[in-house]
């Protein structure tokens, strides 16, 4: 397979090498630091992060579903719709200085950004790969020819007229272009990123990814990032190394439960020329310039937009905040550097603080039709006004109890994150998941595991309260959480506990020890829990329990029960309990396994 691929690549490269003059070729100088620095110096960038549009106004361009579809231009600063235009939009929206660009049917259409009126239309022959725009120009890439001899073309177009300024053919695959400050970035054969002068179409520099492919490019008003699903490089002089270790390279620690997350559009995936589900699973970040070391995420944090949810993480990958959008998914999102913006499928704009997850703004566009996607031109924007209280616990609870089966793994992440937060309220919420008959079993297993891992003394009263539920035919209740609760209490062994809280907890545990409805596996957990927190007060009830079942086939014959009860009385008991164990071991009616367990335990006594 790899051989075939190599032959095919060599063939393609041979054609490139022998064809007409093309800047897209295999042999060219890669990662020339001087050339890259010079190219970057040519960029016309704002002093501060700012929207690209000439008015420097934060804007959002929304594509609504319907027949026909509608483009809605929205001014984020004034919270007002600028214009709405029906259009057969087949792509995402690319934003230029005073225009926007879309593929409408088979035509590339530039519209006046202020009014939405079409400025020019150009028919696209061949297969449309993607487009981009900067202040003064539009750029498009498409594929012509046959499968046997395809040609990719990158072209620069005048924004005012659509006049073709230049074109650059390639016999190797080009990805969709991105543009930024007068430079076009064109991915080539998944390994290179060309920096092309937007005015002339001349190559300025070429980057080769040594450690990973280059399949994604994200541009903000001041920084360009490139990389793959594995991570992103900031396009600065250090990017010339092509290596993660020597470049400004950033890698967000993405929990495995959010495995569909990517850093940006896959520029080689034609489907992603339009808005897709891939836009709903994104790493959202901004960075501050650095002369050395890895990429420095702004505020030492990054976020992940995952369908209905947003999660904020610290640099260790620990969840810092969470936001759960009610009912519907967020279809698009962007990090402006100072805020995270998202828009839901029902047209609600949500703005969050990237550091805390606090809700900065929530407004409805009042759109009738579902939103397919949106492009933000709002770099540096942050809404005015007060932040709402951070609702991370509520968000995590909401995620954990979400009925949507598609997000079962996200629920596990929510539960695991929730469990790391201290306090009885959190424990109560985790227990509520266990009581939820519709919650998936795997999630419940995670909750059980997390409850035990918490080792949170403050949760003991909540756990004890949960023990009030017994299996009761008339009340139609079942002590479903007993094992988990007992396990969680058992994990508190050795912790400093308030004696006032321990007493009721012990009474509640004994009520289950003495309850015939308590199944043997649960009994074992109850015994362990009593031994863990009892500080001696548990010895009497456990001794009575041992006597009651030492000659019983079912409970007394259970190996795990034998170990649990003997361990509890041996480890936590005094001379009286040891004497009792010896007597039980000597009783001819005692189950043989139990007698052996006692003898083993007391071997050094």
């Amino acid at each position: 397979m790899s051989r075939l691929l190599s032959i095919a690549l060599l063939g393609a490269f041979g054609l490139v090498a022998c064809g007409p003059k093309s800047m897209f070729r295999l042999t060219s100088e890669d990662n020339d630091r001087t050339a890259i620095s010079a190219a970057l110096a040519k960029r016309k960038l704002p002093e501060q992060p700012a929207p690209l549009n000439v008015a420097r106004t934060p804007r959002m361009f929304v594509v609504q579903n319907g027949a026909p579809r509608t483009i809605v231009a929205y001014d984020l600063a004034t919270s007002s719709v600028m214009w709405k235009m029906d259009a057969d939009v087949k792509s995402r929206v690319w934003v230029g200085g005073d225009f926007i660009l879309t593929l409408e049917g088979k035509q590339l259409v530039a519209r006046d950004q202020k009014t939405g009126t079409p400025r020019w239309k150009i028919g696209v022959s061949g297969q449309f790969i993607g487009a981009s725009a900067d202040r003064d120009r539009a750029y498009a890439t498409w594929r012509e020819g046959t499968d046997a001899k395809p040609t990719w073309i990158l072209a620069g177009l005048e924004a005012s007229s659509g006049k073709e300024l230049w074109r650059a053919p390639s016999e190797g695959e080009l990805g969709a272009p991105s543009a930024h400050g007068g430079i076009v970035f064109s991915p080539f054969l998944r390994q290179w990123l060309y920096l092309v002068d937007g005015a002339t179409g001349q190559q300025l520099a070429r980057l080769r990814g040594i450690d990973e492919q280059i399949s994604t490019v994200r541009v903000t008003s001041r920084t360009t990032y490139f990389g793959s699903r594995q991570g992103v490089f900031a396009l600065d002089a250090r990017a010339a190394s092509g290596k993660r270790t020597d470049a400004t390279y950033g890698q967000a620690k993405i929990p495995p439960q959010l495995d569909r997350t990517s850093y940006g559009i896959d520029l080689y995936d034609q489907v992603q020329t339009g808005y897709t589900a891939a836009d709903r699973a994104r790493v959202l970040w901004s960075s501050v310039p650095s002369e050395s070391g890895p990429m420095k995420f702004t505020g030492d944090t990054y976020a992940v937009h995952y369908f209905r949810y947003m999660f904020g993480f610290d640099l260790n990958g620990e969840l810092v905040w969470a936001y759960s959008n009610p009912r519907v998914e967020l279809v698009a999102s962007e990090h402006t550097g100072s805020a995270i913006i998202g828009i839901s499928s029902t047209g609600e704009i949500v703005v969050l603080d990237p550091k805390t997850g606090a809700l900065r703004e929530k407004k409805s566009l009042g759109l009738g039709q579902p939103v397919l996607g949106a492009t933000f031109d709002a770099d540096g924007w942050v809404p005015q006004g007060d932040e709402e209280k951070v609702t991370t616990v509520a968000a995590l609870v909401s995620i954990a109890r979400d009925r949507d089966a598609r997000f079962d793994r996200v629920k596990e992440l929510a539960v695991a994150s929730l469990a790391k937060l201290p306090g009885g309220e959190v424990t109560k919420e985790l227990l509520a998941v266990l009581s939820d008959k519709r919650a998936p079993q795997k999630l419940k297993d995670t909750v059980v595991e997390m409850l035990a891992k918490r080792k949170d003394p403050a949760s003991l009263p909540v756990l004890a309260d949960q023990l009030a539920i017994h299996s009761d035919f008339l009340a139609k209740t079942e002590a479903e959480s007993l094992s988990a609760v007992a396990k969680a209490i058992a994990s508190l062994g050795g912790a400093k506990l308030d004696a006032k809280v321990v007493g009721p907890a012990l009474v509640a545990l004994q009520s289950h020890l003495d309850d015939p409805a308590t199944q043997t596996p649960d009994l074992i957990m109850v015994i362990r829990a009593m031994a863990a927190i009892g500080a001696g007060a548990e010895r009497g009830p456990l001794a009575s329990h041992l006597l009651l079942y030492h000659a019983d086939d079912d409970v007394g014959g259970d190996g795990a029960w034998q170990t649990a009860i003997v361990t509890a009385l041996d480890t936590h008991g005094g001379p009286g309990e040891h004497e009792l164990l010896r007597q039980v071991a000597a009783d001819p009616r005692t189950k043989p396994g139990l007698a052996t367990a006692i003898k083993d335990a007391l071997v050094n006594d």
Partner: protein
Amino acid sequence: MVGLACALGGAVHAQPGPAPAPAPAKEPAAKQAAPKAPKAPKAGKGPKIDLAPTVAAVNGANVEAAVKAAELLGATGDPAAHDALLDALAMGLPPTVAIVAVNSLIAHPAPPDVVALKRYAGHHNPMVRSAALASLAMYPDPVAKKAVIAGLHDTAGAVRAAAAAAAAKGRVREAIEPLFELLARGEDSAAKALAAMADADLARKIGEHLGKVPDAILAQTLGMVLKRSDFGPDPARVELVRAIGKIQDSQAIAALTDYLDATPKNPPRPSRQEAQKMVEARMGGGGK
């Protein structure tokens, strides 16, 4: 082993706390405040037995011998035999032996039995629980009543039935509400218990459950009350017949017919006449 049971009595029924409770098996009868509490068994009643080998047998590994020994210890009126049963129960008995032991206790019931019986009323073996509940019916102690009521909530149907029977036997008024709940769930044992416990007031209350419990079981319950020879006076029976008459289920006719079959025509009894009229009206004629 008996000696050990005494020594470890504190552990046998202990509540969580720093110090073990005193040995219940040895708790003096005078400490039980219930006015109708059974007195401690007196010597001289029942057959005389050789206590030492019998006690050894009840605590021995031979289950068959232990069962027989438990029966013997219960049959004799010797207080020491009763204490030996309590000690054996305190030390833990295999289910087969425990069932006989808790039955044997009530031959000569004594207040200290309640704690032991309550412990076995929570045993994992449903047959042991049922036997303990049946025995608890003999004790007017509130603890015993509470245990019987708890048995009505048991997840095992056989145990609920035993608790219902115990509630009826012990006339546990506090059990009436949960028995109605069981009746609503169609449990025959609740019907029998309520019917057995019913006086005129309770019978009226049962009749008022029309629509709240299944018609068939309501008719059966009222029918069982009606057939009780000790239920009366006749105006109360008339009221009961009318309550049954309001039930549409065919079990209502069956209950009334059973009453007619079980009651002589003479001397004339208004409740019988009322029942006959209702049966005729429902069945379109014919008489008994």
